[in-house]
């Protein structure tokens, strides 16, 4: 019980920190902007975590879905002048629908083939956006994407208000992730990651479960993309590039794949690292690339996984105690 209280305290402190953060940096649009972008990317990384970290299928098409979300919102709000909220909803739905179609086909392939297949689909989405001038504006991209429409007295003109809006979506995304992972459904996903054959002999319909998990993860990407479009007001084909998905993956691995806090830790860490190394332009990858390699070799469960491993070692001396009637999936148990 003590541990849970402890965990709750940490979460409460973090949430309060996130809530008061804009008050500390009220005049610093740059800091708020970076934070907001970080939150958006984190939403997308939570999505990848669900399919790759918990269900065990490495999808490399997520930048493509991020872009579909971004472009759907961008096109609907600029060309069709649709209400932002309706456009946001449609962006998530359309991305999910695209994910459903891809999932139906791609999930017939396994392991390496799935990764390659999704990588190629992601690249195809990039090419489509880049070449389909009439719809997407091609290399020029889409400009003048509006900020969210006000809801009653709530407006989203300031950096602070956008920050809170994105934060709300992030918290919702994390909340849903936690609920899923710590449910029977989440156990089902983890069983599939563990061994698809075993999961089938346990009566689990792996096809349906993988598909559902894939579609949710794609919906996360779509939501993140749509928010990104509205925040930056401009999008180009680059949002669909393979580098984008490689970045997401890097955040996920370093933070901790298959853990519940890993995506947030990894994303926020890298977002700020990238800012500090900004003067080195693309060369920060000289450090990030090897970090990624070293992480998978030596700390395959990332920062969060490593933390829990150490903690488990320290606690191991204690004898097993009477459990609560239901034992939630502890984070340390969710690593690959």
């Amino acid at each position, binding site marked *: 019980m003590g541990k849970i209280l402890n965990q709750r305290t940490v979460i409460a402190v973090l949430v309060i920190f996130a809530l008061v953060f804009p008050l500390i940096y009220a005049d610093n649009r740059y800091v708020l902007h970076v934070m907001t972008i970080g939150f958006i990317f984190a939403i997308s990384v939570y999505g990848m975590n669900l399919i790759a970290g918990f269900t065990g299928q490495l999808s490399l098409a997520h930048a493509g879905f991020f872009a579909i979300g971004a472009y759907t919102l961008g096109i609907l709000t600029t060309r069709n002048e649709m209400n932002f909220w309706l456009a946001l909803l449609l962006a998530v739905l359309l991305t999910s629908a695209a994910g459903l179609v891809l999932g139906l086909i791609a999930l017939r392939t396994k392991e390496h083939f799935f990764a390659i297949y999704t990588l190629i689909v992601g690249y195809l989405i990039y090419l489509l956006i880049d070449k389909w001038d009439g719809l997407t504006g091609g290399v020029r991209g889409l400009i003048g994407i509006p900020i969210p429409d006000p809801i009653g007295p709530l407006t989203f003109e300031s950096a602070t208000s956008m920050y809170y809006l994105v934060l709300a979506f992030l918290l919702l995304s994390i909340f849903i992730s936690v609920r899923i992972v710590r449910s029977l459904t989440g156990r089902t996903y983890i069983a599939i990651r563990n061994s698809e054959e075993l999961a089938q002999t346990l009566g689990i319909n792996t096809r349906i479960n993988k598909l559902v998990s894939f579609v949710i993860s794609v919906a996360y990407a779509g939501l993140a993309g749509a928010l990104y479009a509205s925040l930056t007001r401009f999008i180009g084909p680059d949002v669909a590039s393979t580098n984008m998905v490689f970045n997401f993956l890097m955040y996920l691995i370093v933070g901790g794949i298959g853990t519940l806090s890993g995506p947030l830790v990894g994303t926020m860490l890298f977002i700020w690292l990238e800012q500090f190394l900004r003067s080195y332009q693309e060369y*920060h990858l000289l450090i990030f690339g*090897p970090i990624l390699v070293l992480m*998978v070799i030596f700390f395959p469960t990332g920062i969060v996984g490593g933390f829990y491993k150490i903690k488990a070692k320290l606690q191991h001396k204690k004898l097993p105690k009477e459990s609560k009637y239901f034992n939630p999936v502890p984070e340390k148990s969710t690593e690959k």
Partner: protein
Amino acid sequence: MELFLQQVFNGLTLGSVYTLVAIGLTLVFGILHIPNFAHGALYLIGGYVTLVVMQSTGVHYFIAILASILVVAALGVLMERLVFNPLRNSPPIHDKIAAIGLVLFFEALVQLIWGTEYQRMITPFDNNISIAGVSMTSQRILVIVVAVVTVFLLTLFLKKTMIGASIMAMAQNREGAFLVGINANAVAMMTFAISGALAALAASLASPINLVFPAMGHLVILKAFVVVIIGGMGSIPGAIVAGLLLGMTESMGATYISNDYKDMIAFLLLIVIMTVRPKGLFAKGVY
């Protein structure tokens, strides 16, 4: 008709390059079950080493290629030793991620050392010649000739030498090969060396036609994956057939359909094929 012949010829050139890259990829894939996303980085470095050696020392194109082959083969071996070997017992997701880390690193490294500009590689083979009414640079003929000779020599090596036979045995049946006592480490290193050498050769041959730049590996590697999957994991004949098929399709597609969308042809082809046959066209029954 001339246009058509011209396209056949271009298709052959393109297909030769894809084949060389894909053979390296398919060997690594078939033997070690690693989809080496970092293969594109080997290709990239191969192109730059040839260019830089020529520019800085003024040696003949062929000598520069040789140097490039050695450097990149060594790099392939290093990759295997330092990264993929330690990961051989990890879950399959890990080596893919490590490969992605390598891509990010090498691309940044190339940019740091050699800059982001597009560079021309000038070779002694940029003169035009004309055969049967089709005019082409002798570089393109060189590409095809070298590719044919290389594939021939490689096949000979794989069939006639001990280590070559081990590689083929492992490509066909990994567990079985272990049982008969093949030195898996030696085979793995050799495979990566061959794979790197082929990537360097392909890049050096294609660069005088396509220019040298930091992103030059992206499209090639993705297309090589298409070739590997169509041709069947671990199959060299499959890689040759599929490589040429892809080269032809693209060359024809660019002319008769749309130059803008020519890069999509390969990917659409793959998506259609994998939709129908999730393990590729020539995949063996038992995985």
